[in-house]
């Protein structure tokens, strides 16, 4: 052994590591923040999943006037399980019809000419549906599969349900919210507390500080995404058709783009009010336009090119393409370009405008 006393080597401290750790600790020690970031999106999926779950086939009430043919007609119509057939005398049928309790009334006729009289209301959608279902049963009973012109396929498998459409949208939405709040709010809070100024009075490198904020945001995001995808997979059977690597890449790119925008929003704001106002100004249009809950294709054609330029639209479209259609990233250069552009552009502007004190 060497007898000579060596001074203990100075312990190495990595500012980047310490800054990221500080952010992570602050976050996980704040139960409310944890709830809003992780719990809230899950609650949202559950609520929407229940609200829009595939409902059992809705039954359409149709009355049949009592008489000699009533039983036969009832049996014929009941072959379509969407119809709910009740038999009543004429007066009851008419009064139920008038009060809207039934969507159509079938009155078997005797004598020459048409065999049935069908009461319906062309201005009521349900009544029209009842009319066509009844017509179909009375005029083409028991179409055999061979002679049919149209082969009907019922589509209810995972991948094409509303919940499947919804999950990528919610994922995009939570990446947007997390990025903007997780970065913007934190920075403005530090500015108000004069902590930013205090840090600036140390030899801390500004780039490292900003990098730490971005890195910690990406760290928070990982469980956020895993919980969301895991939960919807377990409860609704939502699956990912495309490559997992592509999905991970997209999620990181989206988180980066929104963290950049969050940084930009926070670069000058001096009060919580101004930063919240700006955040809502940025997020609200995207909540409405970027196809979270329903397709933005319903907006006027002239608006579509602009809507597609929004970062959340690009992210949602890309997420859906990967998760629902199994497309590779190479098929979506434009969307990736839009996201990267937003991220890099706002990051650069934020660095230029950032108010450190």
């Amino acid at each position: 052994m060497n007898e000579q006393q060596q001074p203990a080597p100075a312990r190495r401290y990595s500012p980047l590591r310490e800054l990221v750790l500080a952010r992570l600790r602050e976050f996980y020690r704040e139960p409310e923040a944890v709830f809003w970031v992780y719990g809230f999106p899950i609650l949202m999926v559950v609520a929407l999943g229940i609200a829009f779950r595939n409902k059992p086939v809705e039954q359409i009430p149709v009355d049949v006037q009592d008489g000699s043919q009533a039983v036969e007609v009832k049996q014929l119509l009941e072959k379509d399980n969407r119809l709910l057939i009740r038999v009543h005398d004429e007066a009851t049928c008419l009064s139920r019809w008038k009060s809207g309790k039934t969507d159509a009334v079938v009155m078997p006729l005797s004598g020459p000419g048409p065999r049935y009289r069908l009461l319906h209301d062309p201005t009521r959608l349900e009544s029209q549906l009842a009319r066509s279902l009844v017509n179909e049963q009375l005029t083409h009973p028991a179409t055999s599969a061979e002679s049919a012109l149209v082969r009907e396929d019922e589509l209810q498998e995972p991948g094409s349900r509303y919940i499947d459409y919804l999950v990528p949208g919610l994922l995009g939405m939570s990446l947007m919210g997390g990025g903007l709040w997780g970065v913007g709010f934190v920075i403005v809070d530090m500015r108000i507390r004069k902590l930013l100024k205090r840090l600036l009075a140390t030899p801390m490198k500004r780039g490292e500080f900003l990098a730490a904020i971005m890195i910690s945001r990406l760290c928070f995001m990982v469980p956020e995404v895993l919980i969301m995808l895991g939960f919807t997979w377990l409860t609704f059977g939502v699956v990912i058709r495309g490559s997992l690597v592509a999905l991970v890449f997209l999620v990181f790119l989206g988180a980066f783009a929104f963290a950049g925008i969050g940084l930009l929003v926070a670069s000058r704001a001096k009060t919580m009010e101004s930063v919240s106002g700006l955040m809502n100004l940025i997020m609200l249009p995207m909540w409405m336009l970027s196809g979270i809950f329903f397709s933005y294709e319903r907006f006027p054609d002239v608006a579509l090119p602009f809507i597609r330029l929004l970062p959340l639209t690009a992210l949602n479209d890309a997420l859906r393409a990967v998760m629902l259609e199994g497309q590779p990233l190479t098929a979506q250069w434009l969307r990736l370009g839009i996201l990267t552009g937003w991220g890099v552009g706002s990051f650069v502007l934020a660095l230029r405008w950032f108010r450190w004190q």
Partner: protein
Amino acid sequence: MNAVIHCENLVKTYDGKPPVEAVRGLNLAVLEGECFGLLGPNGAGKTTTIEIIEGLLAPTSGEVAVLGRHWGRGEDDDTIRQRIGISLQETKLSDKLTVRETIRLFRSFYRNGLEPEEALRRVALTEKGDSWVVKLSGGQRQRLAVACALVGDPHLLLLDEPTTGLDPQSRRQLWDIIRDIRTQGRTVLLTTHYMDEAERLCDRVAIVDHGQVIALGSPAELIARLGGEHMIEFTLKDNGAFDPATLNDLPSVQSAQKESGQYRLAVRELHVALPALLGRLQQTGQALSGLVTRHVSLEDVFVALTGRHLRDEESPKS
């Protein structure tokens, strides 16, 4: 002696309507190894001055040199930052970090410095190492702020109002910590509006008012300049009114003033002045309702220089 801080003709005007001239031509030289105090009332420009020295504010005009280097000149910024430690007048450190984590974070920014444990020991926070910042008392938080300033083992410490708002015991504890830092050969610049703090802690004091240094010297020198070492304060029955100037000719009296019913005499020798004063009051038929004597303080120096009290802003009297 080397000047660790050198300010020449420092001016800072805040934009606004109207613009605020916070610092108006301030000159300062802080020497190696001393504890220097900027003493002045609220709004005097102390924070503005110290933040200019810290490189956090740009002066409107004037020169600042810190450790012989200048802000904004290439490598100088990092060199200065590595060698100074500061505490701001108000900083809210992160509530949910522990004391030790906070110190580690600040330690990580410096190339060389103290072990976090050593910094904690110096401010007597070792036992609180694992407590969240939110759980600390005001005095403990302030000590943590000083520990964050110390952890880079700085040559120069700049502390803005380190004891404002603290209870007397916490203040004394901080004074001990600051004295300890000074004993280790570090230079300290602090601001305060407590005259007793400046008197007990500082080797030299600059009294600042309206953005200028109006007096400079050791507390003892400043007090000596008033002429008398003692102060007699008295009030008269029936609010008896007579001109304090008529007392100036009493033996050993250096100056006489009256302020809101209270007469104040600066005297050199109490045993000479006091009997003479009592005799004069008897002659003129005035009856005393109260009389105290005390040593002259920096407060009296400030009053003599400006006609105002250091803490005027906080207790509006005049």
